[in-house]
């Protein structure tokens, strides 16, 4: 299944700037992209980022073993938003370097723990997680029709000019 992720350049810039803000103790910041979703013919999904909900400063847990750890309040608020809005939620954080990026082992482990919980409040819709670098992106999509998380095949930054990152070989 092909997964296409689209985001406006201005929103992406807003997200990158927010994620680079310093935090009192967390080394990284995180947030959620609120997304519309749709099927792609013949078999695929397009994820359309609408807006960004940063995790609030007080919702981080001080855990020096990881870059950022969301507290239960952060997850609860994101779940509540998904419950009240027919949207896909994509967790996002940043690796502050240029070029291609991927999930770290911790990113992959933690995403697998909380992303499927969104189906408890908003089933039947893809949710996922992404990581940005300064000029690229990588992400995974938990899709209701697929038993395992699948890599986002392509990120499209819509703007002038357009920018494409294709992660599939």
């Amino acid at each position, binding site marked *: 299944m092909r997964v*296409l992720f*689209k*985001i*406006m350049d*201005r*929103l992406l810039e807003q997200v990158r700037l927010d994620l680079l803000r310093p935090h009192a103790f967390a080394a990284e910041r995180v947030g959620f992209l*609120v*997304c*519309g*979703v*749709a*099927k*792609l*013919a013949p078999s*695929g999904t*397009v994820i*359309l980022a*609408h*807006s960004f909900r940063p995790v609030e400063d007080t919702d981080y847990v001080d855990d020096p073993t990881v870059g950022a750890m969301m507290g239960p309040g952060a997850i609860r608020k994101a779940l509540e938003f998904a419950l009240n*809005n*027919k*949207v896909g939620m994509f967790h996002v954080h940043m690796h502050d370097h240029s070029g291609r990026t991927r999930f770290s082992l911790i990113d992959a482990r933690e995403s697998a723990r909380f992303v499927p919980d969104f189906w408890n409040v908003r089933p039947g819709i893809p949710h996922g997680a992404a990581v940005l670098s300064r000029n690229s992106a990588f992400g995974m999509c938990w899709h209701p029709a697929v038993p395992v998380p699948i890599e986002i095949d392509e990120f*499209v930054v*819509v*703007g*002038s*000019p*357009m920018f*494409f990152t*294709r992660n599939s070989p």
Partner: protein
Amino acid sequence: MSQRYARQSFLGPNAQETFNNCRVAIIGLGGGGSHIVQQLTHIGIGNFLIYDADQVEDSNLNRLVGATREDVGLKTPKAVVATRLIRSVIPNASITPVPKKWQESAELLRGSDVVFGCVDSFSERQQIETTARRYMIPYIDIGMDVHDLGTQFAVSGQVILSMPGELCMKCMGFLREDLLAREAENYDVAGSRPQVIWPNGVLASLAVGIFVQLMTPWNKNYRRVWYLEYDGNLQTVATSNRLEYLKEKKCNHFLSVEDLGDPF
């Protein structure tokens, strides 16, 4: 290595790869759309989704790029003419011809990178733009008209880029409820309006130029909103002065997340 695109290498080192991977939809393959198909083919677009429900008629031959006398006799669908034109230059292009009204297979648009609209009516434009916004697709619209002023004729046209997040055609004053209402009252007039090849060529070229600027980094003076007005009597093209009055305006027509993705 092929020298086919050597003369457009100034567009950037990745331009041809971008063009080859790009997915372009063209709705309307008549006088304007056929020009756009031709130009996009020559610059090396690799993936086409092309819509037109009509077949070639004799009255099309004054302007339909790629159509022949034989096509008139055979009642060749315009989508087939466009396919043939593309294949004659890029034999392995991915082409999805849809010889139907675009609304009947609109879900195919969702994966497009850019949509060109070359249609006859304001209502169609509104529908295409709304669909394009729903899937975060830049929409480039072209159209021409010949007006009978009584003492003489005036030829005019427009090229508009409706970029998601930026001013839409309603914001620009191009789509208005009074125009839509008048059009709905005169629903059968569109097909008989005068149409000629040279304004279509001008407008199509401008549209493709805007597209290339969207896709490649060759021109650092990027613009996010385009509204070009063609005066076919003076043979001029100028940015609509409406944009001057709209500099501070933000589009508030497509703000909700409900306007993104499949609402069902």
